[in-house]
């Protein structure tokens, strides 16, 4: 019985997230299109509204090309690793009061653990394809992801110090009862580091070097096609949603809002997540890509010291003010 309830919850969350992923791709093209004074997709359905569905069907029926030099087993496993790590992260996100698939005490660590897993999917897909572009893209990407993972972990230590918990639900509760209501104000340094690391972790512009199409074709998934490619794509967008959720939970007060919306307990949560996603698009339409050495320098020489400074600052202020 309990198992059935868990399954129902998983299906609801998964269904809603998949719908969001589909339309996140649509709105990405629309938003960036309008920012560049274009229309974006217009042909399939009114204002191109059915475009993501058409894309999905197309990818499903596409031929699955597996290059001869590829290492078959690893080639099969790599997109699955990416997908599993992204989808499973959804389990600990509290969407509104009392609703999370799993309310565990180490919620944040669970997210870190699974996001560190994603770098395997990337580096192994690059290696197993046995192609130069894919191999280089995979290596670059994994080095980038591990560099920014530290910055991300350290940027959230300030939040942990203030909330005194790793449980995502407790972090939201602690925020509601804190004096500023959201941690964005006392933790602005942490938030800054988090946002930059978030963009790099999800391989988005301005840090989308792993798939820099001008030099690496499509990066680590150059050799993938059809549904296998779609799995990488899904994982990337679910990853974006997860990171937005973490940002909302840790810095923007989760599901709490200025007033209560009756019947829609997840209203504020969803609005804030949409803001984050819009921010992703905005950055993509605005900023050019970093150079690789600049990217590494930013991660190691700016973000990590900043995050450490933030921890020391938070520790000092909190012990002085008691």
């Amino acid at each position: 019985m309990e198992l059935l309830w868990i399954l129902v919850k998983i299906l609801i969350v998964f269904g809603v997230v998949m719908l969001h992923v589909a339309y996140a791709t649509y709105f990405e093209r629309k938003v960036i299109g309008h920012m560049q004074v274009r229309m974006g997709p217009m042909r399939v359905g009114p204002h191109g509204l059915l475009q993501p569905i058409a894309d999905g069907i197309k990818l499903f029926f596409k031929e699955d090309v597996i290059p001869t030099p590829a290492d078959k087993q690893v080639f099969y496993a790599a997109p699955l690793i990416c997908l599993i790590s992204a989808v499973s992260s959804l389990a600990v996100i509290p969407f509104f009061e009392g609703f999370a698939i799993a309310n565990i005490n180490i919620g944040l660590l669970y997210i870190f653990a699974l996001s560190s897993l994603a770098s395997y999917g990337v580096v192994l897909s690059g290696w197993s394809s046995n192609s130069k572009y894919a191999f280089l893209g995979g290596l670059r990407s994994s080095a980038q992801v591990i560099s920014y993972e530290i910055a991300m972990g350290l940027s959230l230590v300030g939040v942990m110090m203030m909330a005194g918990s790793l449980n995502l639900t407790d972090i939201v509760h602690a925020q509601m009862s804190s004096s500023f209501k959201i941690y964005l104000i006392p933790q602005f340094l942490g938030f800054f580091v988090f946002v930059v690391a978030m963009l790099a972790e999800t391989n988005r512009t301005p840090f989308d070097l792993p798939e820099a199409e001008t030099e690496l074709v499509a990066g680590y998934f150059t050799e993938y096609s059809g549904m296998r490619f779609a799995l990488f794509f899904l994982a990337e967008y679910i990853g974006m949603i997860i990171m937005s959720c973490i940002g909302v939970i840790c810095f923007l007060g989760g599901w709490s809002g200025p007033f209560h919306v009756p019947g829609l307990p997840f209203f504020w949560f969803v609005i804030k997540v949409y803001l984050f996603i819009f921010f992703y698009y905005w950055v993509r339409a605005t900023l050019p890509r970093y150079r690789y050495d600049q990217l590494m320098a930013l991660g190691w020489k700016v973000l990590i010291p900043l995050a450490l400074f933030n921890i020391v600052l938070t520790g000092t202020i909190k012990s002085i003010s008691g």
Partner: protein
Amino acid sequence: MTPGTFLPSDYLPIMVMLIFATGFGVVTLWVGRYFRLRRPYAEKLEAYESGNPPSPPPRFRFSIKFYLIAILFVVFDVEAIFLYPWALVYDKIGIFAVVEMFLFIFLLLVGYAYAWRKEALEWEK
């Protein structure tokens, strides 16, 4: 209660979720096999290299810089792991905990400064 005799029930959903995610990926790929095209020929199955026949070694030995980054990553990851439980209890233990963690961070900063000085954080050169 003794350890290992009861189930941490909070983690049941996590297990279900992991199985569900794996199942979803495997099933979509497997079902798709019966629907999608399959017309392979030798040229299509080559590794991509802008239409040229791929020149031999694709898995070349890469720069040792990646290895350096990985070493630094392991060290800083372990440091971050130590910070997490500290962040939860430091206000309970008081000023002592803050001082000891500052000492720990200082030790790490010495290593960090060494890495900076030796240009291990530099990418080119």
